[in-house]
């Protein structure tokens, strides 16, 4: 859940989606990374192969519904040990995520921070993979998805609230009310059509590296279209 901040209360905030928006990786990259690092070679091969074969299913379900996608996607973590996931989190950041940070990400955050806007990342990615990146970007406020673990093993389910689509917008509203943030003075950035509710609640929405659908929506609403690559 959101790491609380020591920053003073300010008028506006910048809300960022993460994967595809600030970094070029997506959820599947993380899954693939862990699939290759199973306890035995055979498990690694099997897990990698099944992950690879699942890609078309992920692609189709993501177009259909982010909720269905999440249900299917996080099932892939079922049975994995929490220790192991946390142990490789640093390697995941150094090898996969850090090189994937868009060059414009640093500029955007720096400019936004210089205006006194609170920096908040809202992502459907897992907490264990996001934390090192947040430290790298100097962002102390972030909200992620969290896997449910029983006896140290992932159940393949997420703990509520599941960060996706309308939940993100709802979280932003609650957060803003609690923190005294003016939504009309706030910014939101995302690359995904599923985050349309998040864009809709702030005064300054912007899309980043959008796909065709989101680009058309942005054009229709006259929202800025950024390319951080």
């Amino acid at each position, binding site marked *: 859940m959101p790491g609380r901040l020591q920053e003073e209360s300010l008028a506006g905030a910048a809300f960022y989606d993460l994967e595809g928006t600030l970094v070029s990786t997506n959820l599947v990259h993380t899954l693939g990374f862990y699939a290759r690092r199973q306890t035995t070679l055979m498990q690694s091969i099997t897990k990698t192969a099944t992950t690879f074969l699942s890609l078309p299913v992920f692609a189709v379900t993501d177009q259909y519904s982010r909720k269905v996608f999440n249900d299917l996607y996080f099932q892939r973590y079922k049975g994995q040990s929490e220790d192991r996931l946390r142990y490789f989190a640093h390697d995941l950041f150094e090898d996969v995520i850090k090189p994937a940070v868009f060059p414009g990400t640093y*500029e955007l955050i720096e400019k936004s921070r210089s*205006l006194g806007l609170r920096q908040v990342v809202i992502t459907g990615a897992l907490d264990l993979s996001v934390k090192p990146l947040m430290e790298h970007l100097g962002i102390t406020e972030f909200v992620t998805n969290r896997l449910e673990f029983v006896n140290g093993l992932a159940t393949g389910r997420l703990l509520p609230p599941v960060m996706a689509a309308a939940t993100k917008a709802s979280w932003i509203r609650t957060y803003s009310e609690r923190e005294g943030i003016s939504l009309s003075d706030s*910014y939101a950035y995302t690359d995904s059509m599923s985050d349309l509710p998040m864009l809709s609640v702030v005064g*300054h929405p912007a899309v980043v590296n959008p796909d065709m659908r989101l680009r058309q929506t942005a054009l229709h609403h006259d929202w800025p279209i950024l390319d951080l690559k």
Partner: protein
Amino acid sequence: MALQLRKKTHESVVYIDRDSAPRIIPSGEDFILEDLPIGTRVLYPNPPIKGLPNREAAIRYALNHPLGCDPLFAQLEPGMRVTIAVDDISLPLPPMATPDIRQTILEIVCDMLSGHGVDDVHIIIANSLHRKMTEWEMKRMAGQRIFDEYYPDRYYNHDAEWQDGLIKIGETKHKEPLSLNRRAAESDLLIYVNLNFVPMDGGHKSVAVGLCDYESLRAHHDPQTIRDSDSYMDPARSELNHKVIRLGKIVDEQLNVFHIETAINNRMYKGDMDFLTKNEDDFTAFDRMKFEAMRYTMGKMPRSARRKLLHSRPAQYELIACHAGKTDLVHEKIIAKGFEQYAIPVRGQADILITGIPDISPYNVYSILNPLLVQVMALGYHFNFYRNKPLLKKGGVMIVHHPCFDDFDHQFHPSYIEFFNRLLPETRDAFVLREKYEREFANNPSYVEMYRRGNAYHGAHPFFMWYWGENGRQHVGKVIAAGAETAHVPAILGWERADNLTEAIAMARSYMGNSAEITMLHQPMIGIADME
């Protein structure tokens, strides 16, 4: 008065008579044919001054015989650090046929630098807060050879938002700060390659504006400065120019600048479109055929295709003067040459001024002339093309012919959209807009990123476009948008609308009287009404 006015005074001043031909009026991407009321005075661009027969020789001569300093070759030493700054795509208009004059100058200068052992050379486009030029545009402007040798590491756009790439070089006694491109400011020699298109261009504006940051620019790009400039196309009476000269003094104290300025004639079109700048009474049968063929063809095309077609026709400008050396001395000569080309002696102000707005402006190259740009062309550029006093009487009516469509380029003009739709409905007061919203837009992280990493105009640029029309707004009594397709665009701009020119003239006469003197600027034209 009227009879005296109708005496033939200059070849570029034509009066509509009983048997005069209808006039061609550009209206966005269209060209319409309209009969004007008898007695209407029509101003045409002057005939083009003959271009210099050998422009390479003229440029070499200027470099070797500079004004107020040593020749360029004598200032070069092996190992020195040199930056060449060059005007951006906002001029000339339309973009000129290749090779661009800037390409010729760059090739000559770069060869000279190389021949003198100067290898540390960067070429920077002095785009200020304009959009950055695209790779294709940069190649077209500089030519393949320069592009291949310097792009992208040593041939790039100025970035007014890259803090590490800027350095404060001073402040005037009027508290106007000046921060410039660090590479340019820290070079042993800064060579500026200018192309002068209107009298507002060139001189100290080249470096002090072209390579500065937002904070430096806002010190003089403000409504009061524009109000105090009568007009900003007349350097002697332009407060904007006076402020820029103050900044130029700091530049001259801190930097070693070798200024190369060029003047071009006004041969905008030739061949298939040359009739657009001719007096319709002098049209040959072939001219009429060309016009009808163009109108027929364009009438079959959608607007975007018409726009594309017009933007694909390069201008045929020719070099008429080139000088180099110290900025003030060089600029004085180039301005004089420019006025020789552009000045049209005019006696008597008009009650009603008609101007068609063609799809040509410094800010919509390969893009859309959005409503804010229509405004800046009408109340900014077209209104300000005068010397001594405005062509239009105080309180007169300006008729603008344009479809006034509500269309914006999301890639180039993102902040314009918000400015037009969110701010203008709240207020059209330039002072309020500046105080309340300018910094918000300038610092909007999305607009900053789109300027830096994309090809968007800076977030503050739409404000400058609005201030640019401040003179016109204060002076005119009414603006009527003739041929406006929409009602809300003229309304947001504070204008009235009319279906066509005839209706607009009738409306204007109802305000100004039936004996109102009417003058039309025959667009497209670059010309300065030199008022007696």
